[in-house]
């Protein structure tokens, strides 16, 4: 932990994420009012950042086309975007660890089938799956979480599979088996805890990735539905007013970049802190 914070990247990532999470949790304290209230639309819409409206309310990031405060929506949108990212990664981690562990430690045709499934799912263009799943059922926040979770487990499964295979050949595992531990117990108590480093790194990168994908889906109108604010649908709503109110699309995009950068840096730092020399081949691939 100390090593993590001494690393400037890790410190930056952790502080940034902590700030964003704190804002999201304490949303009612750092903003005024409901993100969806619309006042006098004609009088309050498209106010530039740092302006004050007729009623005397200050808008640090301006207002959108319905006169809603962009800062308020940004903060409440953080709740949605971060929540979707966290839950989606939780699903894909669970799936990925389970499948990877079974494929790595199991015997017979099951591991082969699981590995085949993983490679198959890995070769699919993720966006095609996302589009299909998200467009075919009525878009909702829950659907986005499930869809992102179901399409994100493959890299975790690959990582866990490799680690478990390598660990299974180590003497301490033979020791556990010799003592008479059942296979599931060996897997859960002896192997998996030692295989978690790359999983933590993958989780950090995965959250950033999931948040960006949520934004992409919402941008296409297939994700979180307005008026609930998410960073993606905020960017989408700013698309049409890029000329006269560029701040509507700029602010949530910058927030998104900041959070994804923070996740990436934190992931890098965690990897270097936990395993200074090892598994450096596992560099992050471009976002899928």
């Amino acid at each position, binding site marked *: 932990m100390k090593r993590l914070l001494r690393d400037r990247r890790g410190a930056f990532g952790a502080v940034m994420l902590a700030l964003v999470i704190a804002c999201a949790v304490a949303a009612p304290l750092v903003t005024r009012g409901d993100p969806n209230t619309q006042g006098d639309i004609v009088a309050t819409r498209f106010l530039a950042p740092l302006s004050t409206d007729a009623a005397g309310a200050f808008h640090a990031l301006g207002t959108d086309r319905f006169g809603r405060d962009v800062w308020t929506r940004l903060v409440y949108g953080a709740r949605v975007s971060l929540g979707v990212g966290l839950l989606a990664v939780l699903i894909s981690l669970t799936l990925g660890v389970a499948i990877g562990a079974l494929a790595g430690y199991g015997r017979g045709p099951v591991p082969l089938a699981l590995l085949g499934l993983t*490679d*198959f799912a*890995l*070769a*699919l*263009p*993720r*966006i*095609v799956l996302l*589009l*299909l*799943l998200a*467009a*075919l*059922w*009525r878009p909702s926040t829950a659907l986005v979480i499930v869809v992102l979770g179901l399409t994100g487990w493959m890299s975790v499964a690959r990582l866990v599979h490799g680690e478990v295979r390598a660990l299974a050949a180590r003497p301490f595992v033979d020791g556990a088996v010799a003592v008479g531990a059942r296979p599931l117990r060996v897997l859960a108590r002896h192997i998996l805890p030692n295989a978690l480093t790359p999983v933590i790194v993958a989780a950090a990168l995965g959250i*950033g990735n999931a948040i*960006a994908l949520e*934004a*992409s889906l919402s*941008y*296409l109108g297939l994700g979180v539905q307005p008026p609930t604010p998410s960073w993606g649908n905020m*960017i989408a709503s*700013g*698309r049409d007013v*890029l*000329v006269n109110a*560029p701040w509507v*699309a*700029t602010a949530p*995009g910058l927030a*998104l*970049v900041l959070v*994804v*950068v923070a996740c*990436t*840096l934190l992931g890098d730092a965690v990897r270097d802190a936990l395993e200074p020399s090892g598994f*450096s*081949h596992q*560099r*992050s*691939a*471009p*976002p*899928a």
Partner: protein
Amino acid sequence: MLTRLAARALAGFGVVAGVMTLTFFALRLAPGDPVEHLLGPAARPEQLAAQRRALGLDRSVPVQYTAWVSRFVRGDWGISIAKGRPVRSVLGDAWPATVRLVGLSLLLSYLLGIAIGAVQAHRRGSRTDTALSVITVTLFAIPGFWLGLMLIMVFTYWARLLPAFGAAGLDADYLTGWVRVVDGLRHLALPLVTLTLIGVGGSARFVRGAMLDLASQQFVTTAHAKGLSPWRVTLRHTLRNALTPVVTLLGLSLPALFSGAVLVEAVFAWPGVGRVLVEAVQARDYPVVMAATTVSAGLVVAGNLLADVLAAWLDPRIGHREA
């Protein structure tokens, strides 16, 4: 090598077949059908039923599936329900635009990424390295569609320099020679820059990592000990050996690149496969969705295969080890 290649090709074929099957059943399981979109909200139930019968949508799903596969394999991809045009001509118009965009950005982002990564690895720990790291991490994090919007805002709306929509101007059919080429390039500029920039982040990070992994290897020390200049060691010894994982990554990143292209095409109204796919999914245009997913899965698999061959060519050990 040949057997390995054949096995890979067979596996790739399996992936494409799997994508086809999955898409087909997902489409049929989901609520809503193309006939509702085609006839609109005012259609009477008997009209809907008649149209479904005409399109063969009233038969059981497995029957429809076998019928579709046998026609698809014979090259009959059907007629777009929403557009009324043959699916082959819809896709035939679209895929060159996507290949042009994705191919060029792949080339550019890897060339740039390799250059940046090599400079960073060569000057590890320096200010240049840190600055470039900050830039590549940021690029890596930027969502393509948002970067596209920002570029449109700056270059189209503010600077009024470049067009933001489509692959050619409205008057392109009347242009000839250089003027037409320039028009095409101007339209290509923003989507290409967007896709390339988001790709450079990932590839540069990977190249830097791969080269740093090699920096402590003995052959690098030997090269230094021979008295070769540092740049020569970096370029001829480290980079040369780091290229194998990079080429493998290139193949693996194709699905991601294609995904990015779908969104970037949507932002720039680029007339490619991605836009066809998004529109078709929204209209429940079964034949077009099926053909577009199959073709894109095929392109991705072919790209992976190509990367495999390239990696084996760069590192002859691969072929021997697993042959």
